[in-house]
């Protein structure tokens, strides 16, 4: 290996190390634990004031929007028989409706309320898995007259 080639290898290693360092420290400083509601409930003390991401379902009828500014919002998420109240300041995604799968990120306060800084939601019927088409049946069933051509 010539001296020039060595230079390239060293330069490459320096860049790769710097980037590797970036990834490792970036990971350490930004990681967030991801739990479900029941997992959080069972270890509430240990998890309070730690950045968390929690997954659960929005309990029907719990979504409240502040009358004074329309931006302070609260709702309750549940999973495995446990519930956690969530507060959030900002606009929640359109998909945050009763029964939606929600993922919230933030911190659990000492009062047991989760203060979210980020809310993500997937509407239960957004895509087709487990679609319930029966409401169209209730709306009126057309007799099966149509034959496929």
């Amino acid at each position, binding site marked *: 290996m010539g001296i020039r080639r060595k*230079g390239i290898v060293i330069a490459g290693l320096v860049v790769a190390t710097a980037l590797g360092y970036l990834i490792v420290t970036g990971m350490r400083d930004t990681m967030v634990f991801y739990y479900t509601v029941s997992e959080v409930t069972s270890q509430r003390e240990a998890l309070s004031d730690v950045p968390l991401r929690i997954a659960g379902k929005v309990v029907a009828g719990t979504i409240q929007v502040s009358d004074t500014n329309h931006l302070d919002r609260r709702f309750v998420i549940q999973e495995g028989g446990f519930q956690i109240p969530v507060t959030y300041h900002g606009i929640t995604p*359109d998909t945050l409706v009763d029964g939606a799968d929600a993922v919230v990120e933030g911190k659990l306060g000492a009062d047991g309320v989760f203060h979210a800084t980020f809310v993500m939601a997937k509407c239960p*019927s957004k895509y087709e898995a487990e679609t319930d088409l029966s409401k169209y*049946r209730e*709306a009126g069933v057309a007799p*099966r007259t149509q034959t496929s051509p």
Partner: protein
Amino acid sequence: MIVLGHSALIAAFATAAYTIAVAMLGVRRRQPNLVASARNGVYVTSGLVFVAVGSLLWLMANDRFVVRYVAENSRIDQPLIYKISALWGGMAGSLLLWTVILCMYSSLAAWINRRRHPELMPYVYTVCMTTALFFIALQLFAADPFETLPFTPLDGRGLNPLLQNPAMAIHPPNLYLGFVGFTIPFAFAIAALASGRLDTSWLHAIRRWTIVAWFFLSIGITLGAQWAYVELGWGGYWGWDPVENASLMPWLIATAYLHSVMIEEKKQMLRVWNMLMVIATFALCIFGTFLTRSGIVSSVHAFTTSNLGPLFAIFLAVILAVSLGLVAWRLPDLRSENQLESVLSRESSFLFNNLVLVVSCFAVLWGTMFPVISEAVNGVKITVGPPFFNRVNVPIFLLLLALTGIGPLIAWRRASWPSLRRAFVWPSIAGLGTVIVMLVMRVGGVYSLMSIGLSAFVVGTVVQEFWRGTRARSSANGESWHQALLGLTMRNKRRYGGYIIHVGVVLMAIGITGSSVFQREVEATLRPGETVDIGSYRLQYEELNHFQVSGVEVSSASLIAFAGGRPRFRLVPQRHFHPAQDNPTTEVAIWSSLRHDLYIVLAGWDAQQTATFKAYLNPLVKWIWIGLAVLALGSIVAMFPDRRHSQVGIPNY
């Protein structure tokens, strides 16, 4: 039509299988007529898949809700354009779209190369049709687009209103044209490995394909960002969501390949590396398709959990095992013929570009998959979000930006100091000058100074290249400057097309820097007549109206934007409620100029007409979309056939 479409899919499955068998038999027995039959097999399979797509479109356009897919994704009063775009609004249809694009590409590749590359083509047919077979099998056995319901609903559920947006109507086809397009380079790579024809002929065969796929992928990704910007209402366009990452990863690796392949063409170096890049790009495309359909990572816009995950995982494992096995087998034949000579050379600058792009892709992959990895390793799910991706990728992209300027100008083999001075004095002055101006005006932090400064540097290199080339040509041939400029570009399309692409990338970098570093936001709850300030604008809330438009309940607020004391324009943010859907949709109001976008969301209101707004001032966002147009223009220049070189295939870069 249901029967026709379904039978066409079954028949396509059979002909794809036939094609694979005949192609392999043709190779083994060395019978060209069998290979010719395989080529016809590709055409017939494509025709059948087209029939299937046509049937589904017909069913959609004619509201045949007995078909589950139609009932779930279409509605009687849905505009025709969205009845058509519903083809890719759901799982089964999107798989069908994947298949039809693959078939289109395969047929085109078969036809273009019908008299070329006789050793490679049977393998190309095999790889393409194996992929098609997999996707058709998914539809026949797991996600059937022609599945019927036991009853006929009177109306369908309709396409998700979030997807009823012009950008969303064309974003997925572009993304798929990109994703699927990388199948052809992959097929040629496998063909080269399997047949042992490892000279540069396969590289020349896929050169244009790679640029075409990259072009569509770039458009697809950016349109996806634009859709998120217009439709999701959080003021941004890129959230490092797993689905977005899934499209970015193959783009990063394909970009790396587009650069490193020039070194192989010119110096027969990096041959194993390039092979791996082509394989990795395709594998990441399949991985991306898998990621969006398996539900293994939570995402805002993934298709819901389905039973397709394991099938994709198996297919991906087979792809990786076969292709890496072939590379290992051919390793002795893939030795480089030259060695790197200096750190200061174009070869090494391209090498660094590759290193940086691959690391970036790895970081994105690592961050995206970390919840899965950490859960597998120590049982705890740990996620990383935008802070991680930004922190890692911002320095990486700054480095890339610098290399974008340096790479094309630095000499091959070994750069001398005088040549470096000649190449970089003016661009460096442009870059430093920009930084000084920004410092004097006191705008920006370290990253934005570097980003804008480097952007000026790159633009400087490109302008200088065009300037010098044009001047030399016009003084040598006596042409006018615009003739010379055109002649210069057309004579070496890949080089000058590449420069134009670089300018597009720089414009996008400027737009991304401006909108992420200098974004401002304000929230306000206003009564009619009250105002709120953002940047140099004063927004006055006028009134709130409720009305119905073609079955959609609309709540619409109206605001006037004042600048310098005078009314300038009106903004009308809305909320829509589609009765057939469960959730309302936010329709943001955006006023866009070259300087900045004013972006307003209607957050809520009460009976007294008091309404709450969230407003963002996003500087320079428009330059991202302009950058895309420039990038697309450059790609078109680069993919234009070279009249003199098209047959010989000698790279003139």
